[in-house]
């Protein structure tokens, strides 16, 4: 075998030299100079998609070798997602930063201030991303990352139950109350409650605040940031929150997000305040599930009934990357015209760029129809201490250790402290 290889190599060489001798113009193509070797370190928080990204990285390596004559060795790291952030912070502060890394789009502001993000506004990828998605990963008009997981989300509901009872997606809070009553009359539990993890009840504030603020008081967040607003202006949010808590499944504090998604898939309740990211668990539990999405109404104002548009995982380029050119090329390759669609589909990410022409899942299409109709708002950017506190207080509100008034005063305090 070795002999054969050596022989064929020799023959090739001979042919090449002959070819070169004959035609000097072909030299550049026929005997390429030794490819430059380079290394690229990438760290991502989505180990569940390791295989898909491994393949994509290999495609990138091949493409670079073929087109740029660079022999890239990509080191792809995927720490488990609950440790990811502390690993990333340790690496960034100890001068051992990866060239590219993922972060949650909510942290873009903080990381940008600390100087860990590169402005990608003038890269080719900037023109490909849908504008409403682009605004979720931009600060002051600068595009600071490549969005990977972007979603429009609201309340998940079981289409089968809704169709059986001739129910339609609610437009106002009284519509929702009506739906709840009809469901109860027909012995269905209206809402799935899974409050063991604090981020799940928090989703209710994300949706209700988002709807209320975008529809009624668009300057609320700005004023809150300047210590000029209060949660007492948004007491409407307790309308749907009370309705959900009073008409939900029992033992909510003992049910985690995954268990809740599985129970919902098995028909334990008709609606679930949870993002489309739970669709993986839901569809795995019950592949025949007919999953739909509607916007959570906050009050009687239909303008407040919109879906939340947010980006979670975002890929950023470190400004001190050794192979800056290459790092940017990879960032651009993620939204490559030819290969990107297959990657996004394989990871079941939502389409977010012009080249993503694949058919999305039914629930994604549902949510996208709200976006298309202009009934969406960009996820509110609140200080993360505020977001965390909302989750904690909603747990307490559910177990009735605090009242609405306590919620409002404590949230105002926490917001003020975060502004310091």
């Amino acid at each position, binding site marked *: 075998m070795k002999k054969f290889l050596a022989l064929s190599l020799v023959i090739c060489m001979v042919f090449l030299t002959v070819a070169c001798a004959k035609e000097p113009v072909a030299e550049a193509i026929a005997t390429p100079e030794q490819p430059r070797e380079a290394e690229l370190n990438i760290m991502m928080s989505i180990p569940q998609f390791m295989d898909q990204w491994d393949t994509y990285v290999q495609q990138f390596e091949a493409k670079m070798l073929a087109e740029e004559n660079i022999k890239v060795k990509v080191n792809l790291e995927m720490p488990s997602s609950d440790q990811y*952030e*502390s690993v990333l*912070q340790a690496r*960034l*502060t100890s001068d051992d930063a990866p060239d590219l890394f993922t972060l949650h789009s909510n942290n873009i502001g*903080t*990381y940008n*201030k*600390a*100087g*860990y993000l590169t402005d990608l506004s003038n890269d080719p990828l900037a023109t490909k991303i849908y504008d409403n998605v682009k605004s979720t990963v931009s600060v002051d008009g600068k595009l600071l990352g490549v969005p990977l997981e972007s979603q429009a989300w609201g309340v998940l509901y079981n289409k089968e139950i809704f169709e059986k009872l001739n129910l339609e997606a609610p437009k106002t809070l009284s519509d929702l109350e009506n739906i709840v009553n009809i469901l109860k009359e027909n012995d269905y539990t209206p809402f799935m409650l899974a*409050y*063991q*993890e*604090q981020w799940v009840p928090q989703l209710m504030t994300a949706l209700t605040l988002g709807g209320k603020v975008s529809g009624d008081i668009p300057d609320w967040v700005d004023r809150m940031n300047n210590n000029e607003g209060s949660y007492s202006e948004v007491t409407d949010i307790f309308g749907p929150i009370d309705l959900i808590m009073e008409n939900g499944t029992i*033992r*909510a*504090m*003992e*049910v*985690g997000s995954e*268990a809740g998604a599985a129970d919902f898939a098995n028909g334990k309740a008709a609606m679930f305040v949870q993002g489309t990211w739970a669709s993986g668990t839901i569809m795995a539990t019950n592949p025949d599930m007919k999953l739909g999405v509607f916007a959570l109404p906050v009050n009687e104002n239909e303008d407040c009934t919109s879906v939340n548009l947010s980006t979670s995982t975002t890929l950023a380029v470190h400004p001190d990357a050794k192979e800056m050119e290459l790092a940017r090329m990879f960032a651009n390759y993620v939204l490559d015209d030819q290969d990107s669609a297959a990657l996004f589909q394989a990871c079941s990410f939502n389409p977010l760029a012009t080249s993503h022409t694949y058919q999305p899942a039914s629930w994604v299409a549902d949510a996208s129809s709200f976006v298309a109709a202009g009934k969406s708002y960009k996820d509110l950017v609140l*200080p*993360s*201490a505020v977001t*965390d*506190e909302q989750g*904690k*207080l909603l*747990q*307490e509100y*559910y*177990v009735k*250790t*605090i009242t609405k008034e306590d919620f409002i005063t404590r949230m105002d305090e926490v917001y003020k*402290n*975060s502004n310091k």
Partner: protein
Amino acid sequence: MKKLNPNVSLMLFVAPALVVYGLFKLLPAVLGLFYSTTDWNGLNKTYNFVGISNFIEIISDQYFWNSVLFTLKYVVVMVIVANVIALFLATMIESINRGKGLFRTVFYMPNMISMIIGGYMWMFIVTKVLYYMADNWGLTFLDKSWIGDPRYAFIAIIVVASWGSVGYLMIIYMAALQGVPTSLKEAAYLDGASGWQTFWAVILPMIRHAVTICVFWTLNSSFQVFDVIYSLTGGGPGRATQSTALNIYEEAFKGNIRYGYATAKSTVLFVIVLVITIIQIRIMSKKEQEA
């Protein structure tokens, strides 16, 4: 060969361990003291020196003091519950003739898995198995909100934490019990002492050094309790079961990621534990008796 000073050779033997200890335990602790006087957020390349303002802020931090109170409550209950159970188990196992090894292993086993995993295992028991028993076997007293009601959540935490630490304490107590001279026990028996009297008047004073170690260990580890609560209730509902360590963790890694402030809190916790431990060792070692 020149004879080495015994102190030098002693130092040489402990040097490797000392270096590791110094590098990974002492140095971060000292650096932590420094960071507690800054406003570093764990991310920025620069930070400002803020003097003792972090410590001043702690004084009025209601959530922190609530978590300290919760931790104190947890420590008191744990020191009593874990040590009583461990001593009871040790005495029981020591008193049987057959199957000592089996029981020792069984009770020690929970100590061999990480408490995070143990916590998640119990989470399953508490949120699934108990309700199954309540719903299907009519054991309705189990139908409590084990995670959602702060009172029951506290019980659940104590049960799981004891389950995890009793085995370790039991081994220490067993070793001490084996060191009690049989002659003393026999003398007590001949004097007509009942089993209970023998235990109180003979055995307990003889194993007091083990009690010191065990109480010290539970005290110390209970003050730092994190994993059990983190995996079981996450400090919830709200902050009802938040221990000091969990409060510090959230300050440092969640919310407003304030490393500087969080290290200041750890310093306060360190001082509290130090003072209590010194007092405890003073009192306990006075009572220890020489065999």
